[in-house]
């Protein structure tokens, strides 16, 4: 199907068609002599990781229904190897924050994120998760999950179409493929690998010091 021109103020149509910029960016940096070489072993590992991203079953509201549609027969994210939805955060790789996050839910989400094992990713699905969406002016809604946890891919929409979510998954795969697992910073406390992630204000996110307290609690 031919994609028509998309008219959105903040984004040009070409940007929607651009899928390779991440890879290009890495290539460019490599040529410029920066040592972010993705080693052959990394390539194999990243290939494996990118095809086996297991989502946590997590949905708070409307967008969750579209997430279920992605899992179902027509859109079927199993094609990318995403279908093993785990209910335990310990075993999940990605959390699809689909739905509004309220102030009561925010600490729970943070705790879930902390319970997940590294390497972990976050996809913010829908206007609510991206920025508060239609509820931005509410007294009880967190305007954007990036205030609580670092987000890897944003999917706008209210709710986003399942195709948009599939696109987000593919973007995440691309992102995974240019990571280097052996050059990751290590967590000083337990020596586990941390993927460098940045908060919206540019500071490096370290697994919160709350982790300790959280692990005491066990899973939800």
């Amino acid at each position: 199907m031919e994609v028509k021109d998309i008219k959105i103020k903040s984004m040009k149509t070409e940007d929607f068609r651009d899928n390779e910029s991440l890879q290009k960016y890495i290539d460019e940096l490599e040529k410029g002599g920066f040592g972010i070489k993705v080693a052959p072993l990394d390539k194999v590992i990243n290939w494996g990781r990118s095809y086996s991203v297991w989502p946590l079953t997590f949905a708070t509201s409307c967008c969750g229904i579209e997430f279920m549609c992605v899992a179902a027969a027509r859109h079927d994210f199993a094609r990318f190897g995403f279908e093993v939805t785990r209910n335990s955060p310990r075993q999940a790789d990605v959390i699809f924050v689909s739905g509004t996050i309220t102030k009561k839910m925010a600490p729970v989400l943070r705790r879930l994120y902390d319970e997940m094992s590294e390497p972990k990713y976050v996809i913010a699905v829908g206007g609510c998760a991206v920025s508060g969406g239609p509820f931005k002016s509410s007294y009880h809604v967190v305007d954007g999950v990036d205030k609580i946890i670092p987000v890897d891919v944003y999917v706008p929409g209210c709710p986003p179409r399942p195709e948009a979510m599939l696109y987000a998954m593919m973007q995440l795969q691309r992102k995974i493929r240019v990571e280097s697992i052996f050059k990751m910073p290590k967590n000083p406390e337990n020596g586990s690998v941390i993927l460098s992630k940045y908060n919206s204000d540019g500071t490096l996110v370290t697994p919160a010091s709350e982790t300790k307290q959280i692990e005491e609690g066990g899973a939800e």
Partner: protein
Amino acid sequence: MEKTLKMIQSVSSSCTKIDAADVMVSVDKKDLHKVCEALYKDGWDYLINLTAVDNVENIEIVYHISKSSDMEKFMVLKTNTTDVENPIIETVSDIWKSANLYEREAYDFFGVRFLNHPDMRRLFLRPDWVGYPLRKNYDNTPNEGIPSKVHDMDACEDVPSITLDRHGEIVENHTKLFGRNEYVVNFGPQHPSTHGVLHLRVSLEGETIKKIDPNFGYIHRGIEKMMESMTYPQMLFLTERLDYLCGSMNRHALCMCVEKAMGLEIPKRAEYIRTIFDELNRIASHLIGWACMCNDMGSITAFIYGMRDREKIMDIFQETAGGRLMTNYYVIGGVAQDIHPNFVNRVKEFIPYLRKMIKEYHTLFTGNPIARGRMINCGLLKKEDAIALGMSGPNGRASGWHCDVRKIAPYAAYSEVDFKEILHDGGDTIDRYMIRLEEIEESLKIIEQLIDKIPEGDFRAKVPAIVKVPAGEYYQRVENARGDFGVYLKSTGDKSPYRIKFRSPSMVAVSGLDPICRDTKIADLIMIGGSLDYVIPCIDR
């Protein structure tokens, strides 16, 4: 109606009739309990809704009541307290069980405390939240602070309540929710089968459930407060986000409420289209309900089948309205655009397709001995309990309660079609399960009757550029896929409402979990939850 009025007046001298058309009665708060008791004895056993309104100089509580034996009867009872600082009103939760949660909600939003109510905890907001958000003097600018600690999920939560002592003084009592030695498990807020972010604290004895305490508010988005500063067309947008599975129907309720208040005449074409859309939406919702229930019972294939067939409806929606889950299609005065030329054909193709598929569902799941063994005689809800809890909709009808708003107070094109209100009388899980599949077939019948008869003409009435609702109070009910959905609207003649409240059929469904699930097993809790088919954002609003 006159009789009822006389009866009330004989109980309480303070009672005054406010409105001539609807029966709207105001009583003094001293006499409230007496009047309610008398009403209950008179057969007014169904409390539809309880709303608190902050009128700045006083706080008003509005009760919408009806009779289960004669559902067309409908009355509004009001009481108020002028003590705005420390409002206290007597509880009616001992008369109508459904008032329990409504009163807790009123406490949470308005700070009204109910005398003799057993459980005056906050319902939605965190226990440490400051202020009562729906008060007019509450500063609702989104504040920055995001709490970082998970609030106390401790099992022995403190339950405050207020009673009068011997001398007529108000005393505060504190009890504990669970005993120290109980084995309490948290189900949720993140749990695959709570259908959203419901938090259930379940006290267990082995696998047997002893007590359930639902904890709401994880998806409380403050919709009602936001709407107070929105124009009516803007508000429509949020109604669909309440109960996203029957978005169109909720939107229909608000549209009708505003249209009636404004005295707008809706073109026939729009009414027909709306009815068809409503029914398609109901089918989609029931399909998800069915699918999720099967999933909860461990049959993932059935889940995928339900979702697969739902996609067909999404296609139809998408072609005409542009949206899939949120159609954003109804507007005040009609619908947003005319139907797509393919619409009629698509719907006609869909009807036989789904009929065939429903047969398949029955072979796949209904006939399965394991499924039957689990559902039959499990999770019994008696008719009286359903009424007392206000559990209308498919859940109530499964217990034999005639409560279909489409029959009681027909709206849109429902008076012109011939359909059956499905009633079962067992009230167990399989009844609730079957009723959904049967209602899908009824809905197909309705659509079949209407699809060829969509009249020509306008699809939208002429509406003034700025929608203003004349001052007054309005209540509009529709039957959405979960039951009796209502909109209470109080307007001062402005372009945004003074107070708006939605009656959520899901809330009553969750309040039924505890009585239904006692002494069943964990697996049953999950299954019964699936069969009640609640949607959490509709509860939390």
